[in-house]
């Protein structure tokens, strides 16, 4: 870039630097398409499921999917009770995405808020937040989840909130650390000195500056939450049958791994592709959001 501007310095100098308008990398296109597809499936789940997820078809139990010699009546086959795997997959995607996105956002919001509170007030507030962070990090999450679900019962909203508690301490640490360093000696101190309100400092300056780090850790947390949901569902603490989720399908399909691998394969493939897409997209977003990397 410097060479290019040097050669044409007098003519080019008065123009603002042109941003690179490169096309999207193919992997990012794939990730975008896949996530759009998943969101579309989740939104339209009620209209595109061919069967009800609880409709039993006992005559065609464990029917193979169409591409493994089955019929097009059940394109992805059926499970041990003759329920349509495609229909269950569609509904599972909706539930799992709701839980994963909801919990990832929730934990990011809680964590960043706590981190900023600690960084802004320092002193006792900071000590309290850090104590909570240490408590959260030291506590096995399963025990917390078990006790909450045992005492408060089980509902989807509660489950999302519970998973939202998972990992907030990481965001809180990141947000606090970066905000403190920005405030001690740097742009946040400078903006404060200009007379900005805390809302402006944190919302307009600190948050955009640490967004790249937060986005990366959100894309890392997203697969974790999906897997955690699977684990909890498998233990019978998460999404309860007859309701279904991706983790749930994998968990229950495990018993038929040798006889009917399709029950487990399609939700596993969706988990892998979705988490991969989210990671790819997060990586790309981080680079896009940073003007120094453009």
């Amino acid at each position, binding site marked *: 870039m410097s060479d290019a501007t040097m050669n044409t310095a007098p003519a080019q100098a008065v123009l603002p*630097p042109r941003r690179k308008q490169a096309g999207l990398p193919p992997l990012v296109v794939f990730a975008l398409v896949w996530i759009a597809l998943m969101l579309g499936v989740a939104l339209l789940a009620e209209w595109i499921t061919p069967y009800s997820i609880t409709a039993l078809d006992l005559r065609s139990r464990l029917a193979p999917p169409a591409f493994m010699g089955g019929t097009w009546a059940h394109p992805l086959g059926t499970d041990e009770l003759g329920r349509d795997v495609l229909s269950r997959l569609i509904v599972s995607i909706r539930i799992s995405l709701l839980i994963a996105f909801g919990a990832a956002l929730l934990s990011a919001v809680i964590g960043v808020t706590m981190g900023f509170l600690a960084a802004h007030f320092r002193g006792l507030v900071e000590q309290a937040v850090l104590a909570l962070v240490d408590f959260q990090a030291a506590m096995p999450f399963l025990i917390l989840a078990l006790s909450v679900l045992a005492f408060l019962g089980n509902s989807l909203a509660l489950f999302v909130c519970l998973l939202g508690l998972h990992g907030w301490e990481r965001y809180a640490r990141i947000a606090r650390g970066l905000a403190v360093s920005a405030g001690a*000696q*740097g*742009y946040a101190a*400078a903006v404060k000195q*200009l*007379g*900005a309100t805390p809302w402006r400092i944190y919302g307009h300056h600190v948050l955009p*500056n640490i967004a790249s780090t937060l986005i990366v850790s959100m894309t890392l947390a997203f697969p974790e939450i999906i897997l955690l949901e699977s684990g909890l569902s498998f233990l019978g603490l998460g999404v309860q049958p007859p309701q279904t989720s991706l983790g749930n399908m994998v968990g229950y399909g495990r018993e038929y791994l040798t006889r009917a691998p399709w029950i487990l394969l399609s939700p596993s493939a969706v988990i892998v592709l979705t988490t991969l897409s989210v990671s790819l997209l997060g990586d790309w977003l981080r680079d896009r959001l*940073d003007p120094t990397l453009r």
Partner: protein
Amino acid sequence: MSALLKAEGLVRRYEMRRGWFGRPVEVRALDGVSLTLEHGRTLGLVGESGCGKSTTGRLVLGLETPDEGRVTFEEQPLPAPGTAEWRRLRSRMQMVYQDPLGAMDRRLSIGAQVAEPWKIHGRQTSPEQVAALLRSVGLRPDHAAHYPHELSGGQRQRAVLARALATDPALLVCDEPISALDVSIQAQVMNLLSEIQAERGVALLFISHDLRAVRQMSHRVAVMYLGRIVEEGEPDAVLHDPAHPYARALVSAIPHPQRRGRRIVLQGDPPNPAARPAGCAFHPRCPVASARCAAEIPVLKPRADGRLVACHVAHGEIPAGSGLPAPTLAKAA
């Protein structure tokens, strides 16, 4: 004309703990600093690192509150940091930083950052105003679309200066504004500061360890040592013929082609604000100290020639001694 800024007896203490269970040690970063600054004048503040120059700057800006003493700006005491009143006052007093890249938000264009003070203080902005402001600090209007990392060090410092000048402040505290810049750029930035002062009548508190720069910029110079002002006066007088032994040593450290080998090399350790010597803080290193220096703190008072000096010897109260042996330092600590 009344003083724009008046600081009286500023004391700033910090608590420092050695280790987990160590006794908290009181560090006196500032120990009774008084200064006045008139409209459109420049006060230079010099001293070695750790002597409290920057703390003084932060206190007079109201970024921190002094433990003792008070600061009045335009005859009003400074409001507490963080209050709405304090935020409003920011448009009257601004700061220029040592590290311009760190002081700028690297995600916002120069134009957006320069216009930010207007937004904060509820004023309408237009691209023309931004362009005019950038031109006034020697940047091109098209720099508004650049990001901080795309500018050179000198240009960044100009941008920081433009942001500080946006609200037309009466006081500009420049905390080592040129020490991160190349020598050639230093001169440009100093000239720019002088021009801006002549144009806008802004008062400058120019903090630096560069005596050359301070001499060029200032109408008055204050030499600080370990949280106190030890000598204050006209820059030519103070920097040509310093009265305080510390100022003398400081001035002799300026490289000079004709004065080879006559540098005063101070003995002893650099000052530690956590273990302040009794009496004159400088006495353990002072080549002319005598017994009284270790016992009695010299006050900053005017000499016959109008210069303020804090030294028993310089005031002629006692004859010049031959320095005190080192162990007094340990006893005092």
